[in-house]
């Protein structure tokens, strides 16, 4: 009997809340798609760093599980409250609480089953779209990807758990609530907000905090960028405070704005204003916390989507700057004394191996020389640290010119002068103008570097470019070589073989791990391959973009579903109220306009500020790009932010329009 009753109830609800169920199904579809990506055999085979891709998606899925469980539990309890009278009637007809709970759980299970079935069907297609996007971002051929039984299993477990968690609160409520409250509870109507001015003041304060935290995030990101620091706890703290400000702002605004409008007798006496503001006041006040949370999730979606695409540009530009050549060689050192490693593969042998892979189009070499002293370091913040690894490096002017000319820079001339090429931003603040190094019996004077930036593949803070004769008595510590290959297309498998050929075993001093100072044997390759780095970055970008889209889509969908559900579930009450308005002489046009304003305000209150976060996100990203010397990419950043905002707004408007049209068809009374 319960199953029959539950099936009938679910069918009835499906008709009423189609938008909601489709959204839940879409969320299931996204979960299914991402779980399949996590266990994708194709990615496992193609991705260089599959484990971190998989880990990142798993963390996101856990996050999504928590958020969706919370939102669905709210929605389930809300739907239950809508049906209080029905459950109360069942109880008065002789059903006991266990019967009611069984019925409710049967319904939830059925809903879960329907959402799971439809979601997985949709997920089959979404998974292929996501995989195609990942492959495209990784610049690999798009193929039809296989589904993973593990992914399916995980989706079923997650969805059942989400529905179980979300029904738990409602089940407890049903177990405890009195029959009287079930039958008469819904008669209560929300009262107006007391002290709307205080709420508005709180909203303004929260807005100020929001702006303050945006500024704080910018400063923190700047600090991380400039100091190469890796501790992001402050940044995370500021992001959490930003989210908290967003929540408080929306709670306070939801309670304050309409309350204050209602205090203005002159404005509220115009047309249907009182009616509209009272409608909004009750719905916004009752849902203010939820609106705040939804705003934070939407803000997160906007920022996530923006930064993922910005990261794509950043990675592309960083690769172009850091890897100007196809293969780069840096000779490794062996033990103390800075002598070339005797185990290393000779450059001639290496070049022969490279030629078997692809013809070498051009090759540029240079060496870094050292006196073993730390004269230039004495001008930096590392002065007096006693770190014997930090000693000065010099480059011959002729090597420097040979290196920069293919990169598009003009040759440089020096006349008893030197300049410093800096790889570290903090180090760039050092003033070397008073340095007068004596090299090869001659004193050299400082001159500013002719170009602001020319990154050189080199893990040192800086090196000094001097006329060739200055290094005559110096010891050449490291050799470098840069190769451009003839064929532009890369075969990753052959490249991996080449890398293997250029790898050798050697004994090195363990500087970092436990037992530092001991000699350990390990595999070393002195050659870096642009293609590998590119591949790694493309993988990171692909997973960041897909992960961000996944989160943004789920949060956006959940928010819109809840807003649509809340709006549509109020239709019976709204219908009565608008019927009364019609009886009092309000025409259909005025009713439609009022309903539009009512639904628009409810939909866009949690959306307006989050979508406006695109502006500071773009501004901060643009500023950071400029600081990374990618000023020419600023236009793209603005374009991305505008596009993300436009796409999200479009989806939002579509949902709003669908909700409004359904509401209008049900509510507006014509004569």
């Amino acid at each position: 009997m319960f199953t029959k009753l539950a099936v009938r109830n679910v069918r009835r609800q499906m008709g009423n809340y189609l938008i909601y169920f489709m959204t839940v199904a879409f969320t299931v579809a996204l979960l299914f798609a991402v779980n399949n990506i996590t266990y994708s055999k194709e990615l496992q085979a193609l991705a260089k760093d599959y484990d971190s891709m998989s880990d990142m998606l798993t963390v996101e899925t856990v996050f999504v599980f928590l958020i969706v469980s919370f939102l669905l539990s709210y929605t389930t309890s809300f739907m239950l409250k809508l049906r209080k009278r029905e459950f109360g009637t069942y109880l008065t007809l002789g059903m006991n609480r266990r019967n009611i709970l069984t019925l409710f759980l049967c319904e939830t299970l059925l809903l879960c089953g329907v959402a799971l079935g439809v979601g997985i069907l949709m997920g089959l297609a979404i998974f292929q779209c996501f995989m195609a996007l990942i492959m495209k971002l990784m610049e690999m051929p798009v193929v039809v990807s296989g589904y993973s039984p593990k992914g399916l299993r995980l989706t079923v477990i997650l969805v059942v758990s989400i529905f179980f968690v979300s029904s738990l609160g409602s089940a407890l409520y049903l177990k405890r609530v009195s029959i009287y409250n079930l039958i008469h509870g819904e008669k209560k109507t929300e009262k107006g907000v007391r002290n709307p001015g205080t709420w508005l003041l709180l909203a303004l304060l929260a807005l100020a905090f929001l702006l303050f935290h945006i500024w704080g995030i910018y400063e923190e990101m700047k600090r991380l960028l400039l100091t190469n620091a890796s501790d992001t706890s402050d940044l995370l703290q500021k992001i959490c405070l930003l989210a908290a400000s967003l929540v408080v702002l929306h709670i306070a605004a939801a309670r304050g704005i309409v309350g204050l409008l209602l205090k203005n007798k002159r404005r509220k006496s115009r047309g249907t204003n009182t009616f509209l503001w009272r409608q909004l006041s009750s719905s916004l006040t009752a849902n203010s916390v939820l609106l705040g949370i939804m705003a934070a999730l939407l803000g997160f979606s906007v920022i996530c989507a923006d930064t993922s695409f910005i990261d794509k540009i950043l990675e592309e530009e960083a690769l172009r700057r850091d890897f100007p050549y196809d293969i780069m060689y840096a000779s490794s050192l062996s033990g103390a004394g800075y002598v070339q490693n005797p185990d290393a593969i000779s450059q001639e042998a290496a070049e022969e191996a490279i030629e078997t892979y692809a013809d070498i189009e051009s090759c540029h070499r240079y060496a870094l020389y050292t006196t073993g002293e730390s004269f230039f370091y004495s001008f930096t913040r590392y002065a007096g640290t006693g770190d014997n690894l930090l000693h000065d490096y010099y480059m011959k002017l002729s090597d420097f010119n040979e290196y920069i000319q293919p990169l598009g820079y003009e040759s440089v001339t020096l006349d008893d002068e030197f300049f410093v090429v800096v790889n570290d931003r903090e180090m760039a603040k050092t003033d070397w103008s008073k340095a007068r190094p004596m090299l090869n019996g001659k004193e050299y004077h400082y001159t500013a570097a002719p170009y602001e930036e020319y990154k050189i593949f080199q893990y040192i803070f800086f090196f000094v470019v001097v006329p060739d004769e200055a290094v005559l008595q110096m010891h050449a510590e490291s050799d470098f070589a840069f190769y451009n290959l003839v064929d532009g297309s890369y075969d990753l498998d052959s490249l991996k073989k080449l890398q293997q050929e250029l790898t050798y075993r050697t004994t090195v001093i363990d500087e970092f791990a436990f037992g530092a100072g001991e000699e350990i044997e390990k595999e070393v390759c002195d050659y870096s391959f642009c293609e590998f780095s590119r591949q790694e970055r493309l993988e990171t970008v692909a997973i960041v973009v897909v992960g961000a889209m996944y989160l943004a889509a789920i949060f956006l969908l959940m928010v819109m579903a809840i807003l649509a559900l809340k709006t549509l579930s109020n239709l019976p009450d709204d219908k009565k109220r608008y019927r009364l308005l019609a009886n009092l002489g309000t025409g259909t046009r005025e009713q439609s306009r009022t309903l539009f304003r009512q639904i628009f305000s409810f939909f866009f209150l949690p959306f307006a500020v989050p979508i406006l976060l695109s502006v500071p996100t773009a501004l901060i990203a643009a500023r950071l790009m400029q600081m990374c010397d990618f000023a020419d990419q600023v236009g793209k950043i603005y374009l991305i932010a505008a596009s993300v905002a436009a796409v999200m707004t479009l989806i939002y408007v579509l949902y709003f329009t669908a909700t409004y049209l359904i509401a209008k068809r049900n509510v507006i009374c014509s004569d």
Partner: protein
Amino acid sequence: MNQILSLKNVTKYYGSKTVVTKALDGLSFDVTEGEFTAIMGASGSGKSTLLNVISTIDRASSGEITIRGQELARMKENKLSDFRRDQLGFVFQDYNLLDTLTIEENIVLPLNLRRESLEKTQQALQRVSAALGVEKLLNRFPYEISGGQRQRAACARAIITNPALVLADEPTGALDSKNSRLLMETFQMMNQTLHSTILLVTHDPVVGSYAGRILFLKDGKIWSELYRGDRSRAEFHREILSVTSALGGECDVY
């Protein structure tokens, strides 16, 4: 006296081609300014249909209805809304107060919809709230006051625009006898002191006895008509009871 409402040969059919119900069958009558008319009859006699077509909530199938000389059938939808707003006041059985609005906001809503100035609105509010004794309830919400108080608030809303005609559909239907009596005294006061023209639908002879004239409906037609004249309310009540017995005794007797 000016004629406020006039019905000529009004009919109303419900249903499709195969099953047709004639709810109103060639009804004709007039209501003049300041009149307090009650429509009585058994369930299904056409009382509520009659009120619906007069209130422009429903359209008559044929015939002519004019209020203050304006023929309703010729009005387009927007005009009808304006007409309802400006010329009619409503009191319903279930109060029909908006639960989200305070009593004050409910009462002044018709004036707000007419976009009257705040000053005029406040003057009108003072006038009707004092007359109907709801001044102390203005800041309360409907669920915070009793049924009788809600219905008085609904009456205040119905007359705040000085409508040509106040239409009341079973206004005492949800009230106990004491509150019913108080509400009918309010209607009487509205009619006698504020000169409101009232058309009230009821099946209760006690409620009907407060009116000056009663139209008895049966099968969509006027079956009988009574005028109170100079008689006392008790005498009028007795006569109503005798008519309802003759009608078939289907009206409730208290």
